[in-house]
């Protein structure tokens, strides 16, 4: 099997006259820990919205496991193994924490074998992994920020993805909480899941990623190991405006 897991080729996206993505090409290998950085408004979230299917790219193609998924609706992509968390947590507010995880279990994992499937048990096991088991029956409206971030990851994981896109799962968290989330992501990666991390907390991206790409104004300005990226003058210019 080809080692390329996700292949993004010349993807562009326009919002009216504004070019959010301008011919972005990327290849991500199976099992890779990949970091995506860039200043505010550089197109990071737009790119992963195009990958997850929340947006349709205007040009180019997105191949997942060798299949062009760029015209598929988001739920089909989730069923093929692409899951994501949201930057601003979007819990199903009318449900308990546990029920939030039951949704992907019912609609992705067990959709052909719902009868007899123990979706609640599986959701509980996932919550245990995340250290959220005690909050299973809590309505999502009374969860803390860090709990909501973990809920986002747990819900994405409930879809049993091959590729997990973590969109700023750590923004606004305290130092110890960042470590907690990082540890979860490392653990998931160890089970063979490819992870794309979008993050503003440089320390976290640098520690986590094997390879980093930096976007600026919808283009890739630089790609390499975390160490080489920090040294890169283009990246420093994009961030510091110097």
């Amino acid at each position: 099997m080809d080692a390329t897991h996700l292949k993004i080729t010349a993807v562009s996206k326009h919002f009216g006259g504004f070019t959010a993505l301008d011919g972005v090409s990327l290849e991500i290998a199976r099992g890779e820990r990949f970091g995506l950085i860039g200043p505010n408004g550089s197109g990071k979230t737009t790119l992963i919205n195009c990958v997850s299917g929340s947006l349709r790219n205007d040009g180019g193609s997105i191949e997942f496991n060798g299949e062009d998924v760029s015209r598929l609706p988001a739920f089909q992509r989730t069923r093929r193994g692409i899951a994501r968390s949201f930057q601003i947590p979007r819990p199903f507010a009318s449900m308990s924490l546990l029920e939030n995880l039951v949704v992907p279990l019912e609609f992705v994992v067990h959709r052909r074998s719902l009868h007899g499937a123990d979706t609640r048990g599986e959701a509980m096991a996932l919550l245990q992994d995340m250290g959220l088991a005690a909050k299973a029956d809590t309505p999502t409206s009374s969860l803390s920020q860090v709990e909501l971030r973990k809920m986002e990851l747990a819900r994405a994981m409930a879809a049993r993805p091959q590729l997990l896109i973590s969109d700023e799962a750590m923004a606004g968290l305290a130092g110890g909480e960042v470590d907690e989330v990082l540890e979860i992501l490392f653990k998931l990666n160890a089970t063979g899941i490819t992870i794309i991390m979008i993050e503003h907390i440089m320390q976290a991206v640098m520690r986590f990623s094997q390879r980093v790409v930096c976007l600026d104004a919808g283009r890739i300005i630089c790609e390499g190991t975390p160490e080489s990226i920090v040294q890169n003058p283009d990246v420093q210019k994009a961030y510091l405006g110097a």
Partner: protein
Amino acid sequence: MKFWIPSCLLLAAATAAALIVENEYFFFAGYTVLMFVVLATAWNILGGYAGYVNFGTPAFFGLGAYTAAVLFKAFALPLGLQILAAAAVSGLLGLVAGVLTLRLRGIFFAIATIALVVIMETLIINWRYAGGATGLQLLRPAPTLPFDSYIKMLFVLMGAMAIGAVALARWIEGSWVGRGLRAIRDSEEAAECSGVPTLRLKVFACVLSGALMGAAGAPMPMYLSFIEPASTFNLNYAIGALASPMIGGTGHFLGPVIGALLLSSIQQLVTVTISSELNVLIVGVLLVLFVVVAPEGIVGLVRKWMRRISR
């Protein structure tokens, strides 16, 4: 069983009452109340669970009524078949309207459903066979035994339909379909990314909701022995179908039932004792009151009290 035993007892009691009580008026009024139970329950499937506010109830209801009337005029079809045909035709309208409009979110969908009512009414007004703007006079056949009056028979029939509609809503609420619809209401994007086929599920809810509304409208021509467009496509049906779940509570299948029983009974009472003009005002006042004071309706209030007691 917790649902079916009380339901069957209620239906048996309604049948017994229809056979014993002489005065037809109670059944005439009761029919309307039960009809609103069906309409409110149907509305709640799309409006309550999925959060897509539908003002198009009269379009589905009226299309059902006209389907029944036209089939009766053309082929003298029995009532049971009229209802089935009405449900199918209104369900089809739900499919077409759903595919065309459910890509729109929130307020835009609501506006599109209002347009649907106007379109349907205009079509019927211009259809001569269906009586056009003046309407159709229909002659009721003899009631089926053991009933001695057609109205009493329709009352029991509508009771059975109400139970069927509530049973369907209850199944949806407890199943993966209901969870998917609630996920859509909470966050459509997160639902889609959790594998929920949002458009498909919304269209399914719209078809089911439309079919039930059409079925609720089907006995109307026989109930009145008459049908005409202005009252059949009346926006009061939209308001009643929307206000009842809002007042009763949209989150639970009993919400629309409680809301419709309360609201329609008050309306019937006011129509007889005070004036038929005032009953619309009462809906408005109650709706505003509940939206402001108890947005989760009566069911929400009861739940809050129970939680307080258990503490």
